[in-house]
């Protein structure tokens, strides 16, 4: 075991995977620090699952380098330090929930004495204790997903990869899952999420990365990402050409419409919170009259849609899988 204790949870350099002529992931360089909840976002087929599968050693990269907890991705020692919930999976229907967990505990090399306690603990955590002796074939999709999460955290790994962990859960189950993820973060684990549920990601994530057509288009702390694309709503007189010219110079005009009182409401994309006072200053300096200025962070959904829609799609199409 040579993984440095200070190494990032995940570190990739130009990680690339082609499936024939199609690109799965292309040149992804990303660092995920230890601790906290990291979310990888992207449309279906963007390459999220391909990227995660390379990190957990299920598929080999065409080129580039990936390290997990300071160790080469896929290495047995690296795999001792991770838990993984696949996107699409079905556990054996003939086995009970606790048998599946017992099997995974044995594969993880857990000592028999520790197994029983950990299995009971994770069953409690995911709310499956009462159903542990039932056959998996009789589980609902949500219960199977809970069992998958229990498997992923069974050995208490410092890094947990969860691919769409709440996709089959009802609203109550999602809330419980959020609480579980926050608890894992509080205990010092690193959680690597792949998800389409942007509102949930926005509630719990510390860092976010977005990939489009296999290429990384954004990466950073969630707050910075949202702040970097701040939106200002400005109200000026409809015929105030000087004010409109000043606004256009301050940032990209997203929309304009007529508000109450014959005023023009302009939505302006700004490069950060620090740019807000400059808007007022620019309008006044240009001789315009400012009737209102309100800055607000955009939702993650707004930012995501802008990021994945912007610019031409990268070369090649989506790769294998749906993520």
């Amino acid at each position, binding site marked *: 075991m040579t993984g440095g204790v200070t190494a990032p949870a995940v570190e990739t350099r130009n990680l690339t995977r082609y499936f024939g002529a199609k690109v799965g992931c292309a040149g992804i360089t990303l660092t995920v620090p230890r601790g906290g909840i990291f979310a990888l976002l992207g449309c279906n087929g963007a390459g999220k699952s391909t990227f995660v599968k390379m990190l957990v050693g299920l598929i080999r990269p065409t080129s580039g380098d990936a390290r997990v907890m300071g160790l080469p991705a896929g290495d047995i020692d690296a795999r001792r330090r991770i838990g993984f919930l696949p996107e699409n999976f079905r*556990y054996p229907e*003939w086995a009970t929930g606790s048998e599946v967990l017992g099997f995974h505990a044995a594969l993880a090399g857990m000592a028999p004495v520790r197994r029983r306690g950990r299995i009971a603990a994770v069953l409690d955590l995911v709310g499956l204790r009462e159903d542990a002796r039932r056959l998996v074939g009789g589980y609902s999709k949500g219960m199977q997903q809970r069992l998958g999460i229990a498997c992923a955290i069974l050995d208490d790994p410092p890094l947990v990869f969860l691919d769409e962990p709440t996709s089959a859960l009802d609203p109550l189950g999602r809330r419980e899952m959020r609480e579980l993820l926050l608890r894992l973060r509080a205990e010092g684990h690193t959680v690597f999420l792949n998800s389409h549920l942007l509102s949930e990601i926005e509630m719990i994530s510390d860092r976010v990365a977005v990939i489009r057509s296999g290429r990384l288009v954004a990466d950073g702390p969630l707050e910075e990402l949202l702040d970097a694309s701040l939106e200002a709503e400005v109200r000026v007189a409809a015929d105030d050409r000087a004010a409109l010219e000043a606004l256009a110079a301050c940032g990209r005009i997203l929309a304009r419409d007529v508000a109450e009182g014959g005023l023009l409401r302009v939505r302006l994309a700004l490069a950060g919170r620090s740019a807000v006072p400059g808007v007022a200053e620019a309008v006044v300096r240009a001789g315009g009259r400012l009737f209102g200025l309100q800055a607000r962070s955009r939702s993650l959904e707004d930012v995501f849609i802008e990021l994945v829609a912007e610019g031409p799609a990268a070369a090649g199409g989506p790769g294998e899988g749906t993520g």
Partner: protein
Amino acid sequence: MRAVAAFTFKEALRRRLVLAAGVLTSAFLALFGFVAHAAVAHAARDPLIGAAGGVAWAMVGVFLARSFSGLLAILVSVGAISGEIESGSLQSVFVRPTRRSSVLFGKFLGYGVMLVCYTAALQGAVLVVAWAATGVSVGRPWEVLGLLCLEPLVLLSLTLFGSTFLPTLANGAAAVLLYGVCVIGGFIEQIGALAGPRALEQVGIVISLVLPADAMYRKAFSVVADQVANPVLRQLLGPMGNVVAPSWAMVVYGVCYIVALTTLAAWVVSRRDV
């Protein structure tokens, strides 16, 4: 490897396929006992046929039973790797700190133990039923059962290997077809040895080298046939019987085939994307 073997063995026992095989096997044994008893009682009027009847019926039973265990070997393991990749359950297994080759060897061990138990019980029961129905007992039964158990293990190694790169359905179809070809190859070899031309015999040998499953059965048959002094009786079953017997070198080849194919399967599964 032990955890995978134990889990696979449990899976093999719990799946309905094995339950169905158990029920059908019991029905087969009852029917076989009844028919063998009636046929031998009828043939007893002819001293030559009467003496041969016991051995002949025992070998008919063994011939039919070997196709049960052969098909069970294919059906139980047809989706061992590809099916579990399709369902996604192998993803969470391969992420564990266990070598993929250990997972494959564990699966071979789990299925193999189940198949050996099934084949030994089935063929043992056939010999007992044949003895009860005809009064003829087969000598060196452990040697016969050991050779008969090799046949499903050969098929298991083939199906496991196919399962590492073929989809479940294609693997099942390919394995059943190959098994059929190898049984027919055995017939061709016997016909060639009995009536010529010699080229037919050689075709049979080549097929046995590609898939030595039938050769294991033929060798088991020859151990039984060697106990029968009358050469006419030895040819009684025609192409189902044993005009020419595989050598012990072929048995060694069969064992090497199992080891080589399972090792190759482990190599393929270690390198493939999941």
